[in-house]
């Protein structure tokens, strides 16, 4: 019998038992879709894990001073020095730590901060809005007392006592490297409006009067050559020290990276990721442009080459990120630049080989213990958190895969039962076809063809819906680990093929049973 004839006969038999066949096909489709999407999903998950394990962020050790945390429900501005640790970690600690350890290769600062191009007075700007819309991002910097101070400076343009660094920190930005770079954000008048207002306030308080009204605008005056209109409202930024570029393998395509001298002298320079530079400066004239971000004026000194790295916490591509010097923040108050050396809060160290993370942790623990006392700093390894999370997720995936396989198994058993029932119901017909010249093999093939046709139909439908199941699984399983975004088609196909073959096996036994039927008995049966 020719395969096409066998297929046509199969279709007629399936049509003869349409409802059961459709149900079995649909059940198979569900099983195939589940198994295929799980196979593809686990594959993507493994690929993502592999990517993450190679990511520089997972060779990091994060060092934070204990007691520096701000509770979530506490306003960030309330910074109580009494509750903070003795360990006020800053950039200087990094160099010392690197000298006292052998396995730690890099040390750097790399806090996340959303950079906003929105200017005060644009209507979007308010004390709260600043924090939410782009002032200070959640996370590291909200634990950072200096960041809190920064917010205070926005809401109230002069600091609550004990929050701001002493006024001796106020410097004129005209001195130092900033001027040489043309970063003369503060090359304004010699009057200090901040001190003047403070004096007014103190006088009013001394006299028991209401504090005088003052004009906010004077704090936000911007030189004419500063670009204030940018095509993006805000974008992710990282406050880094120079070693960050090296540790993350980021290289400049144009201009230069900033150095730690920039960092120490508080130069307001910025290095842009490649895509961000394209978005902000479509004409490619980024270098040398002065832009206004988070109330500060930055000069673009470099554009990075494209990288495949993404931020492990936010999933933003590092091409979309801007990099500014950490360790010193400046606020330009009406032409006067106020710079305060804020405690960095979070130090990052990295090892060459993540296998050394445990030993490096011990080294750092010993170093900081000797420096600030035992328990003064907390050292966390993102890799450890990742592994914990991955282990948990792997278990969940195993369970879901098991359920998917169980679904396919049940569907296949239904197919098996349906085929066995058909063999029994068609016993007499089998006898007649034997009389007409069908071999036992031909009869087995006929039944196998029928079950295979149903399996295949189910597999095709299952494959067609599997991208949707995949997305569903994705949204259900990987809320936090979201880098598994693309549908992995090769593995979807492999999974569907595997599920199809699995389902096919269940048609074999009924087919063999059909072939074994005794023709003479079958013809006598009713």
């Amino acid at each position: 019998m020719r395969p096409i004839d066998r297929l046509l006969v199969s279709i007629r038999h399936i049509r003869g038992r349409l409802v059961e066949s459709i149900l079995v096909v649909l059940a198979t489709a569900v099983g195939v879709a589940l198994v295929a999407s799980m196979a593809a999903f686990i594959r993507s998950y493994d690929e993502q894990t592999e990517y993450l394990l190679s990511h520089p962020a997972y060779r990091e050790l994060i060092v934070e001073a204990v007691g520096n945390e701000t509770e979530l429900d506490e306003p960030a501005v309330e910074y109580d020095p009494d509750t903070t640790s003795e360990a006020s970690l800053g950039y200087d600690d990094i160099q010392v730590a690197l000298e006292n350890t052998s396995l730690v290769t890099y040390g750097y600062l790399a806090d996340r901060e959303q950079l906003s191009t929105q200017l005060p007075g644009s209507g979007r700007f308010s004390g709260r809005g600043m924090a939410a819309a782009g002032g200070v991002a959640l996370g590291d910097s909200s634990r950072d007392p200096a960041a809190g101070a920064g917010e205070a400076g926005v809401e109230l343009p002069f600091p609550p006592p004990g929050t701001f660094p002493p006024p001796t920190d106020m410097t004129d930005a005209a001195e130092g490297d900033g001027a040489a770079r043309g970063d003369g954000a503060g090359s304004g008048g010699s009057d200090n409006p901040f001190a003047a207002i403070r004096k007014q306030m103190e006088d009013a308080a001394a006299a028991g009067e209401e504090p005088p009204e003052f004009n906010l605008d004077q704090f936000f005056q911007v030189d004419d050559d500063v670009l204030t209109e940018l095509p993006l409202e805000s974008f992710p930024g990282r406050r880094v020290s120079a070693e960050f570029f090296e540790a993350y393998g980021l290289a400049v395509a144009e201009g230069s990276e900033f150095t730690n001298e920039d960092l120490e002298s508080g130069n307001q320079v910025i290095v842009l990721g490649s895509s961000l530079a394209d978005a902000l400066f479509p004409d490619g004239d980024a270098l040398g442009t002065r832009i206004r971000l988070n109330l500060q004026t930055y000069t673009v000194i470099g554009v990075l080459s494209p990288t495949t790295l993404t931020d492990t916490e936010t999933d933003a591509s590092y091409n979309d990120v801007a990099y500014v010097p950490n360790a010193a923040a400046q606020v330009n108050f009406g032409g006067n630049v106020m710079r305060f050396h804020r405690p960095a809060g979070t130090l990052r160290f990295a090892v060459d080989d993540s296998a050394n993370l445990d030993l490096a942790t011990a080294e750092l623990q010993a170093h900081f213990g000797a420096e600030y006392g035992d328990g003064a700093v907390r050292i966390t390894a993102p890799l450890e958190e990742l592994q914990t999370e991955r282990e948990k997720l792997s278990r969940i995936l195993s369970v879901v895969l098991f359920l998917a396989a169980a679904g396919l198994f049940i569907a296949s058993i239904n197919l098996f039962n349906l085929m066995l029932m058909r063999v029994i119901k068609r016993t007499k017909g089998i006898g007649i076809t034997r009389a007409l010249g069908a071999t036992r093999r031909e009869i087995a093939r006929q039944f196998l063809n029928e079950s295979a046709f149903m399996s295949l139909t189910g597999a095709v439908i299952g494959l067609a819906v599997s991208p949707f199941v995949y997305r569903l699984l994705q949204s259900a399983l990987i809320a936090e680990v979201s880098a598994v975004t693309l549908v992995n088609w090769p593995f979807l196909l492999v999974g569907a093929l595997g599920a199809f073959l699995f389902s096919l096996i269940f048609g074999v036994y009924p087919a063999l049973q059909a072939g074994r039927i005794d023709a003479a008995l079958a013809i006598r049966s009713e």
Partner: protein
Amino acid sequence: MITLEGISKSYDLGSVQISALKGIDLAIDRGEFITVMGPSGSGKSTLLHILGILDSPDAGTYRLEEHDLMTLSDKELSRIRNQHFGFVFQSFNLFNEFNAFENVMFPLMYAGIRGSERRERARSLLVQVGLEHRLYHYPNMLSGGEQQRVAIARALANDPTLILADEPTGNLPSDKGEEILQILDGLNRDGVTVVMVTHDDVLGKRGSRCVRLRDGVVESDTGRAA
């Protein structure tokens, strides 16, 4: 053409062993019209099934022409059934999911005949049995006589040399039965060997030779007597 020697067959019905055939010797020549008669349980149908190699005997030899059928494989035996034998049953045994035309095509499909040749052949067979107006009717839309004629057309699909008919008129009114018998007579005149099982004495005399079975042995054989 066919030589059976010492054919015996028993069925195992649980604890009871039933001997259907107990040493049958039978020789069938080309062109004969043999009727097989006997009471119920005498082994008529078993003999017919063994002749049609649907069933294999427990003992004895079966020679078809020069072949010893006991030594052939399932594939070879199936080919013999397909090419040389045609079966007609009391209850017609058409495939209900397929129309008359398709039912007739089955043996042609097993023979590997394809396309237009197969369709032409199926059509001419149905015309031959007088059903040119019933080609695409399903079995449940046909009368008993029509169904049996479709079954005969199907049995004739590959020009068999032997027609094996098991009570072919048993489920038909006598006039329709007579039509079927005339078709078989016509085939026999054209040289096809016919073996027909019946328990009707009148029909038993239609053939050129009558074999009577009783309790699994040949009771009488007009061919042998003659």
